């Protein structure tokens, strides 16, 4: 006789059906950490190295192997991006039920949105932003677009390390050599080969996705620049008054037309770094008064020393015994 299953039992069975069977692997299941688009992420024990790692396992039913290929492609892309700002991949393979998986470093941090709730100073937030830019610029230099940059895909570790995660929608637009850091020509604007997906499917997250990506048009690195602009907006939204120069940077990064945006992540990062250092940014023309004010602020120590010297000399002259 068929048994009655409560709603909670159905939920548990759904979850159970998704648990990976790790028989025949060197990993032991500990618990589930989360669910992404293609698969679940589990905390597992690596019995060979006696350490905990994260395992991403395909959840989707994959009749023709498309999604499996995509998961393994994601693993290979990340494996090639050896950078302190990108979570390293250690291993990949197939489970006994045919589902693919890959193993990555277990990042025990917080998602960006959670982390910044405890970071009040705009300057501290911008330093995090620059670390994100570093990782994305590195990926671009290796010919990889992320295509789903958003606060939920950035982790901040307990020691302040910033990691760009979830490269599931990433796209290799150029095969670069290991040591190549030059600007890949394939990443340049209007490359006809560069499509969001083979079928023009829209992938990404609304609100953080560039307009051309939303439309399913061809995208290049400027789509990631747009998403970084949206992250910059997210990071500065709590600030009581966002300086005009920073607003201009954000607007430039999020320009509707990609040809009006920063053309590279490095350009965007340079402007944000300049802003942090009290230098003018390229996208905000300053009048002589503002420039003078900025010069004074930047050189205030020297100016104060000079002033102190002048005052001291004046006092000496004034009180000199006659």
């Amino acid at each position: 006789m068929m048994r009655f299953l409560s709603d909670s039992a159905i939920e548990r069975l759904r979850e159970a059906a998704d648990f990976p069977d790790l028989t025949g692997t060197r990993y032991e299941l500990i618990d589930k950490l989360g669910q992404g688009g293609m698969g679940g992420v589990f905390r597992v024990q690596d019995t060979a190295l006696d350490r905990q790692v994260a395992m991403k396992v395909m959840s989707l039913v994959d009749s023709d192997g498309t999604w499996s290929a995509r998961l393994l492609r994601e693993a290979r892309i990340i494996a090639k991006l050896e950078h302190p700002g990108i979570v390293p991949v250690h291993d990949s393979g197939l489970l006994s039920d045919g589902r693919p998986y890959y193993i990555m470093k277990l990042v025990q941090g917080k998602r960006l949105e959670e982390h910044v709730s405890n970071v009040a100073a705009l300057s501290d937030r911008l330093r995090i932003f620059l670390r994100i830019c570093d990782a994305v610029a590195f990926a671009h230099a290796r010919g990889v677009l992320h295509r789903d940059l958003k606060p939920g895909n950035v982790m901040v570790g307990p020691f302040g390390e910033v990691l760009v995660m979830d490269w599931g929608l990433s796209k290799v637009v150029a095969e670069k050599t290991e040591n190549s850091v030059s600007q890949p020509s394939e990443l340049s604007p209007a490359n006809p080969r560069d499509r969001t997906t083979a079928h023009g499917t829209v992938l990404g997250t609304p609100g953080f996705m560039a307009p051309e990506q939303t439309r399913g048009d061809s995208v290049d690195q400027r789509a990631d620049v747009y998403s970084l602009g949206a992250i910059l907006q997210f990071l500065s939204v709590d600030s009581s008054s966002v300086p005009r120069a920073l607003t201009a940077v954000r607007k430039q990064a999020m320009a509707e037309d990609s040809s009006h945006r920063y053309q590279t992540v490095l350009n965007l990062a340079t402007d944000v770094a300049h802003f942090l250092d009290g230098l003018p940014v390229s996208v905000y023309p300053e009048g002589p008064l503002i420039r003078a004010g900025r010069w004074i602020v930047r050189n205030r120590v020297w100016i104060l020393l000079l002033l102190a010297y002048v005052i001291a000399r004046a006092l000496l002259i004034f009180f000199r015994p006659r």
Partner: protein
Amino acid sequence: MADDTQIGGARQHFPTTRWSIIERTRSAQAEERQRALDMLISAYWKPVYKYIRLHWGKGNEEAKDLTQEFFSRLVERSLLDRFEPSRARLRTYLRVCVDGLVMNEDKAAQRLKRGGQVTLLPLDFETAEGELKELPIATAYNPEELFSREFARSLFSLALERLSGECSANGKTVHFRLLELYDIEEGGRQLTYDDVARRFGIKTTDVTNYLALARKEFRRIVLDELRTMTTSEEEFRREAQLLLGVKL
């Protein structure tokens, strides 16, 4: 082929030539046709009955009549012959057919007059009625969600029944008991593997392995059942995502 029991083999690639349930209900062989219809009825009769009771607010007796009427038409192939897989998924088509049947219930007298032409199916309505009392009282739901939820409940129950049978046949009753304990019974997951190992007289590592195997087999059977109940690869994938709670 050794892979036949693994739904297309270890890589889960399903053979595209496998007959869908609809094709089987249209088979020239009476036995094949009957098997397919039995499978459809076993998976859908409870969702249909509960849907008529909950969504249409019909009473117990009226819902029984309508359910019988619906599946009689199904058996007589008048409903399935009109189904076009390219236009809708089977589950949605069946639900819309139920809607049509209920909306035309003013022809109830005509239905009752059919007498001997109606094939009365041995459906356990008392159990289904009892299950309705176990369901949480929904304040708002949409018909598709309600029907999907009940279909998932029905399919999972069928899969568990099949898993139970397979485990018994292969001397793996402990495997199935562990699945029941952790994934079906309330509060089971609060038990530690050590506690469970002591209770069943097995090693703690066996608990991990047995449970993993039972879960893997459950997944396999669910997908196998679902494969049978769908009519195309695309529908199968979409239904699997819905059934296993995986979103794209």
